[in-house]
């Protein structure tokens, strides 16, 4: 009986255990490499040799080195990571947006309040140049804050644009890498052994790509993997790559969009269909949150600025002024007041004429107090133009000259064409465009244009409570209007309301039904609140403020102060509007944080599950080291035994 089968058994066993030790060593070496999959040696029993006494085992074979891989877990981990990357990207931008909506003394709301409150000192000292100068300084300060907020929003857009460009450049590099890995994997497939490290490398690239875009993978028979995004857009197929490009958004030139290059054309991806990934988060922030933020700030600037301008025009400044009223305090850019109309932005696909888009649409702001913090889209389908408040408003028909939410829409000489789309941003730029027009403190219209007095001979208790000018220019400039109160006995019922008085203006002689407690409306464009009840035949006289009184009258500046409590911003005061805008953004950040925490935890969990299936545990490897080392020692012992047997045989034979 020779010792050689034993020798060969021992050698095989030593080989197998050495291979296992080597693999364990490799595992230990790569324990901290991200994306490394634990490898193990696959052993099998060599078929036994048949003899008359049965089968004798012929030891162990090393079949292959396999990696611990679980495609399902890997896909789950990547999907979770995509969502978490989307939420994290949006959250980090939202955190920056929130800095624009600061609470307290450093916030915009405070600047608006400080500006309006500074009018108190002009009200106390209408002729005092320094009090007027303080108002101008506060107006300048408020304007600067709005400008800074507008600029910060532009910077956020620039940041989003560069982040998206960087992510798309990364994506293109990653898809290139995946295609190359596909190529190499396919080429070594013929060798019959899995290319573990190449597969790991490709998985790592795919995982990184998954952070940018949510993707789906389809494995091909040749070992390559196809990568698709946005519900079927091909990025990688075998060694073929489709490039992603960043382009201008078709409807809003300030924003960017991502598309797939397809020959000479670019197929744009919709942010809604992207599903997850950092790029989807950035696009969603750009198209929703940033637009809303800009509109909230812009609407506040537009409403406050316009209301002050309107009140300013109704009063008298210290300098001679024309019929158009006192000079404006704020400029708010195209669309507002004297600045003319603003052009609506034509969609890139609109019908084109020889010189750019054929149709055109423009708009002006007619009622700043009802402006919405929204963009609008006008589109023409089947010959009917309709307008929709973005992003989710319902659509309603619109015609040339219609007023929607305080915005008057005008179609150009050539109106919108079939299939055209136009984007209207009534307030989006107002904060950025706001300027303080007034430089001379004497231009502040502190004095009321009209003063009212009850005649000394009146018999009733009616007193002048407050006068508000409602028309610029006045319908009867320079004229004194007397209003006579006459009792109605019995009361006259008009539209279900019983009236006890008529008021008759000297300017038109028309008796108007009136009740105590309601404002008296004069023919000369004003409203007067009467306190008490006038007697029969009592006379109220309203005359232009005498030149000698302009320097010390404070009627109009008191009306400006009343703007603090007026519903300037879509039914809210400026303070409420800012507080709401601030909490709106705060809620978004909170929700964004919750979403990011949640999806982050899910992603961590999925990664941990994947890691426990495919990663390295050093204690396990240490145990394996001992296991294989002992086995190796045992195999070596077999050789020793075989040699001893052989030696015994030789000694015996040699005698």
């Amino acid at each position: 009986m020779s010792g050689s089968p034993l020798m060969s058994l021992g050698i095989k066993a030593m080989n197998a255990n050495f291979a296992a030790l080597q693999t364990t060593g490799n595992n230990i070496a790569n324990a901290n490499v991200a994306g490394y999959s634990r490898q193990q040696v696959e052993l099998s029993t060599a078929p036994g040799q048949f003899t008359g006494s049965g089968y004798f085992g012929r030891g162990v074979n090393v079949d292959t080195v396999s990696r611990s891989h679980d495609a399902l877990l890997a896909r789950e981990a990547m999907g979770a990571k995509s969502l978490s990357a989307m939420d994290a990207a949006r959250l980090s931008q939202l955190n920056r947006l929130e800095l624009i909506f600061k609470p307290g003394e450093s916030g915009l709301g405070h600047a608006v309040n400080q500006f309006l409150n500074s009018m108190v000192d002009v009200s106390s000292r209408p002729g005092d140049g320094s009090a007027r100068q303080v108002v101008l300084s506060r107006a300048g300060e408020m304007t600067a804050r709005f400008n800074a907020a507008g600029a910060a929003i532009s910077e956020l857009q620039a940041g989003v644009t560069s982040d998206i460009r960087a992510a798309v450049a990364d994506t293109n590099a990653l898809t290139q890498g995946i295609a190359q890995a596909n190529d190499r994997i396919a080429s070594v497939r013929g060798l019959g052994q899995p290319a573990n490290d190449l597969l790991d490398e490709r998985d790592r690239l795919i995982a990184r790509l998954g952070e940018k875009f949510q993707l789906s993978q389809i494995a091909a028979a040749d070992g390559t993997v196809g990568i698709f995004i946005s519900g079927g857009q091909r990025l990688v197929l075998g060694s073929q790559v489709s490039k992603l490009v960043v382009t201008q958004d078709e409807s809003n030139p300030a924003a960017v969009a991502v598309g797939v290059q397809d020959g000479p054309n670019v197929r744009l991806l919709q942010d809604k269909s992207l599903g997850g990934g950092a790029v989807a988060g950035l696009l969603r922030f750009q198209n929703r949150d940033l637009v809303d933020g800009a509109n909230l700030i812009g609407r506040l600037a537009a409403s406050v600025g316009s209301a002050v301008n309107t009140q300013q025009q109704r009063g008298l400044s210290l300098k001679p002024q024309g019929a158009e009223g006192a000079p404006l305090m704020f400029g708010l850019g195209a669309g507002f007041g004297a600045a003319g109309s603003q052009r609506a932005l034509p969609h890139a696909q609109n019908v084109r004429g020889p010189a750019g888009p054929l149709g055109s649409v423009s708009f002006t702001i007619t009622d700043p107090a009802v402006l919405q913090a929204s963009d609008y889209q006008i589109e023409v389908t089947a010959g009917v133009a309709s307008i929709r408040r973005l992003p989710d408003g319902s659509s309603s028909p619109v015609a040339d000259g219609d007023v929607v939410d305080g915005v008057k829409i005008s179609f150009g000489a050539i109106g919108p064409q079939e299939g055209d789309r136009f984007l209207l941003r009534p307030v989006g730029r107002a904060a950025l465009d706001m300027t303080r027009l007034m430089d001379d403190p004497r231009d502040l219209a502190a004095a009321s244009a009209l003063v009212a007095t009850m005649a000394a001979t009146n018999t009733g208790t009616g007193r002048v409570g407050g006068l508000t000018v409602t028309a610029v220019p006045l319908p009867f400039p320079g004229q004194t209007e007397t209003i006579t109160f006459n009792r109605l006995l019995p009361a006259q019922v008009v539209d279900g309301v019983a009236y006890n008085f008529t008021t008759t203006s000297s300017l038109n002689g028309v008796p108007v039904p009136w009740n105590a407690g309601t404002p008296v409306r004069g023919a000369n464009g004003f409203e007067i609140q009467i306190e008490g009840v006038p007697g029969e035949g009592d006379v109220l006289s309203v005359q232009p403020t005498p030149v000698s009184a302009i320097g010390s009258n404070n009627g109009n500046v008191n009306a400006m102060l009343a703007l603090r409590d007026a519903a300037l911003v879509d039914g809210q005061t400026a303070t409420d509007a800012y507080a709401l805008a601030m909490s709106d953004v705060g809620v978004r950040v909170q929700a964004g944080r919750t979403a990011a925490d949640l999806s982050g935890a899910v992603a961590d969990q999925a990664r941990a599950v994947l890691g426990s299936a495919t990663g390295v545990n050093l204690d396990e490897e240490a145990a394996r080291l001992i296991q294989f080392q002992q086995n190796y020692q045992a195999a070596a012992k077999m050789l020793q035994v075989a040699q001893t047997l052989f030696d015994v045989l030789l000694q015996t034979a040699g005698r």
Partner: protein
Amino acid sequence: MRINTAQSFDAAISQLQKRQNAMIESQLQLTSGKRIQKASDDPASAARAERAMAAMTRSDANMRGLDVSRSMTMFTEAALGDAGELLQQAREVMVGAGNGSYSDADRKSLAAKLSGLRTDLLSVANRSDGAGRYLFAGQGSNTPPLVDGPNGVVYVGSIGQLQASAGEAATLSFDGDQAWLRAPDPANPGATLSVFDVMDRLVMELNTAGRTGAVISQSVTTGLRDIDTVSGNLSSARSRAGEALVRADGIETRLSQSKLDAQTERSKAEDLDMVAAISDFQARQTGYDAALRTYAIVQRMSLMDYVK
């Protein structure tokens, strides 16, 4: 389940960082005393605090308006007091003019005295606050509101009165026309008397020579009655000024109260509950401490240590 060693280190480190962050956040809140640093910390409370802050600055501004109203009213009240004294002197002059033993020359010198008092009265009526604002400017006047005209003193200000901006009705100027030129005449219902017309008439009458005792005594009687009438009208203006001052005190109380309320509201909305915050901080500190200790124990353990 197999623990992935590298990931278990990562997870432990990220947990430690989270705990450290939470502790630092607690510490920041404690040092600033504010629960809300940005709107997302608590959007509803941030909005509440914002409104409360606006109310506070509003109260401050209104208080400034009220201070001016009060000082103007105090000046006015003092001016009307001075006017009352001057009229009292005029009354004494008139009482003296009734003396039957006075000659025309004596009455002329009394007339000169009255004329001096009239000048004083006009300057009181045109008194300013020292900063160019006339106390009796009505709804506004850049120049002295009462001026001598061909038919006596007329009012060139704008009739009525200005309101200060103090959140409630507070007077900023008085109606000089009403106070000085429009005293209701009890002897002649519907008609009014002007302080200056009365003085002018009396000066003229005292200057008229060769009048009989009966006429003079009639002049003195009607003169005293008219002086009392216009004096009474100025007194009632003075008492209106006094009321305005009392009202200003009331407004001040309400403004201070509303500012205090707003402060309380703001503090409730955004200030930190120190007791809760300190106990929170201690809990987080304990948590971080425990995390560090267990990390040191667990992550140090390795099979390699036992395989010798």
